[in-house]
């Protein structure tokens, strides 16, 4: 049983602080995904958990042991690298068994574990090959096999699929997901890829600038982003934003207007908004619908007709550019004017500090 607990975890390189105090609890058996823009410190945080980077401050617990000063081999972790990092001079069999050999596992036990891992990953026929004789997907399997035989409490993955082509990525994604179900171990997974994050995670941790922006289930992050950063980062295409101010608040509905939009109603049961407040309105491209008397009017730019949906670039009066994904096929012409509406329950409001106004 090994959950993890990060308390005010910090990392600096000289004077530069890269990880700025991260608090996070990970339950045993959870699949946690770290996402964030490039350079936000995902890899650094993962490597701190692995023990490959020193921890500059704070406390890291794996299971119920503080492991700040524990060697990687004693942390009960295994890691899969983006580059696979297979030992080129060893066969697949020896690659997978290297850790067991170092741990002086008896030969028969070792053999049995290696073959078991090979069976799980369906790579028994590859055991005698050298890594240079494998395809990218096969190498990735070997790298995962190397992690499995260690029977770790916690698996760490640093963008394991980013070197694979799209189709293979989907396959491997499903396999990793299956592996998680079968092994029941805790997994921490770093990725750039939204789809990977949304499909694999029990819990997504969004990082930016070395700070946790939000932690939550994928759907929660999608529907109730905590701030502008998360709203913009999760979901594809990206959420549209426009600055507005509140006109009136009546009942559950706040009405907002701005230079680009007029009288958009937003459901806000919590009534944290007073008329006149400066706000940012966020609308997902998929939540926009065509309506003759729509409150959002813009000029049509590029139109991509995909048959099942139509992606429209819209130029708002102030010059801001929005994206709308409309149901079905819409024959729209460049330059024509288009009016759109949004379901009040789906539009989001953010205060001037960028924090979401809770519903």
């Amino acid at each position, binding site marked *: 049983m090994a959950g993890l607990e990060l308390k005010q975890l910090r990392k600096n390189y000289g004077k530069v602080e890269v990880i700025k105090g991260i608090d996070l609890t990970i339950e045993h058996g959870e699949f946690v995904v770290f996402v964030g823009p490039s350079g936000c410190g995902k890899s650094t945080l993962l490597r701190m958990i692995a023990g490959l980077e020193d921890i500059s401050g704070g406390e890291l617990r794996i299971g119920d042991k503080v492991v700040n000063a524990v060697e*990687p081999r004693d942390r009960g972790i295994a890691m899969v690298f983006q580059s696979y990092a297979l030992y*080129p*001079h060893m066969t697949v069999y020896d690659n997978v068994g290297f850790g067991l050999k170092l741990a002086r596992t008896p030969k028969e036990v070792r053999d049995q574990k290696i073959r078991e891992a090979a069976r799980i990953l369906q790579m028994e026929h590859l055991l005698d090959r050298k890594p240079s004789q494998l395809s990218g997907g096969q190498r990735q399997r070997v790298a995962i096999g190397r992690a499995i035989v*260690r029977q770790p409490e916690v698996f760490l993955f640093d963008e394991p699929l980013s070197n694979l082509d799209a189709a293979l990525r989907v396959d491997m994604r499903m396999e990793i997901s299956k592996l998680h179900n079968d092994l029941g171990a805790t997994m921490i997974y770093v990725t750039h890829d939204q789809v990977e994050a949304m499909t694999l995670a029990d819990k997504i941790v969004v990082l930016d600038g070395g700070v946790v922006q939000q932690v939550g289930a994928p759907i929660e992050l999608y529907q109730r982003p905590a701030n502008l950063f998360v709203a913009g980062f999760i979901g594809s295409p990206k959420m549209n934003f426009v600055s507005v101010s509140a006109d009136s608040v009546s009942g559950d509905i706040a009405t907002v207007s701005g230079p680009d939009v007029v009288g958009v109603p937003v459901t806000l049961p919590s009534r944290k908004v007073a008329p006149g407040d400066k706000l940012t309105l966020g609308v997902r491209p998929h939540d926009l619908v065509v309506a003759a008397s729509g409150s959002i009017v813009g000029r049509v730019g590029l139109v991509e007709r995909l048959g099942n949906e139509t992606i429209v670039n819209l130029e708002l009066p102030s010059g801001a550019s929005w994206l709308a994904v409309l149901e079905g096929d819409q024959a729209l012409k460049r330059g024509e004017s288009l009016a759109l509406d949004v379901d009040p329950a789906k539009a989001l409001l953010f205060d001037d500090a960028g924090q979401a106004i809770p519903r």
Partner: protein
Amino acid sequence: MKKRASIIGGAAAIAATFVVFVIPFIFIVLMAFKDRQQSALRDFSWPTGFHLWENVFEVVKTRNWMMITAFINSSIITVVSVTLLVIFAAMVGYVLARRRTRWNGLIEFLILAGLMVPPAVVPTIWLLQGLKLFGTLHGMILVEVAYNLPFSIILYRAFVSTIPRDLDEAAIIDGARPLDVFFRVVLPLLWPVTVTNIVVQSVGIFNDFTNPLYYLPGNANATVQLTLYNFQSQFSTAYNLLFTNILLITIPPLLVFLFFNRQIVAGMTAGAVKG
């Protein structure tokens, strides 16, 4: 046209190689077959009789079988020095390439200095005497290691940086201690440079003439190159024996080359295509 030019170029290269490397060797072999009178002429003539075995026997038995002692001494010095050089140079190169510290600049400067500053013989002898190592094989081995270390380190250092750091880290995660990482992961991957090192250093040390001359006096300590003196004197030189001697002591380096030849080529092309 292009093809013809490249054929001519190739032929010229082969001819040049032949003149520079093969002709002297043929000369040595021919001389080793001659008797004393004919060899004294020192010309490029066909041997009049077959005297190789006599010459070899004569050379080996001269000065109380000095050749045998010399071969044993040289082999010990070469094998031990090269082993130490490979291990130490690879270790230093590895640490130097992997761990960035403030001292790296200074250390690299010292290594370069070791390459450029000529060895000071008298102080070295003085030091060896103080350590009671002067005139001993292990003293000689230490001297060879010290003199050749900088070059080997430089060879290794450049190559270590081509081994991805991920491999070290994967090994650490797999439970490798620092020496495991070095001996089981890094050193095997350095094999191409190790071959280069073994060839270059073993030939250099085996053929070393001056250092044994300074630091290893005495008949019991003779090394192969010093046996050449047996047949050379101010007044008379037995050229047939001298060249037989040369032929005999050329054989081991030649064997090293033949043995590692394929691996040198394989090593040079190994990392070429990233697979």
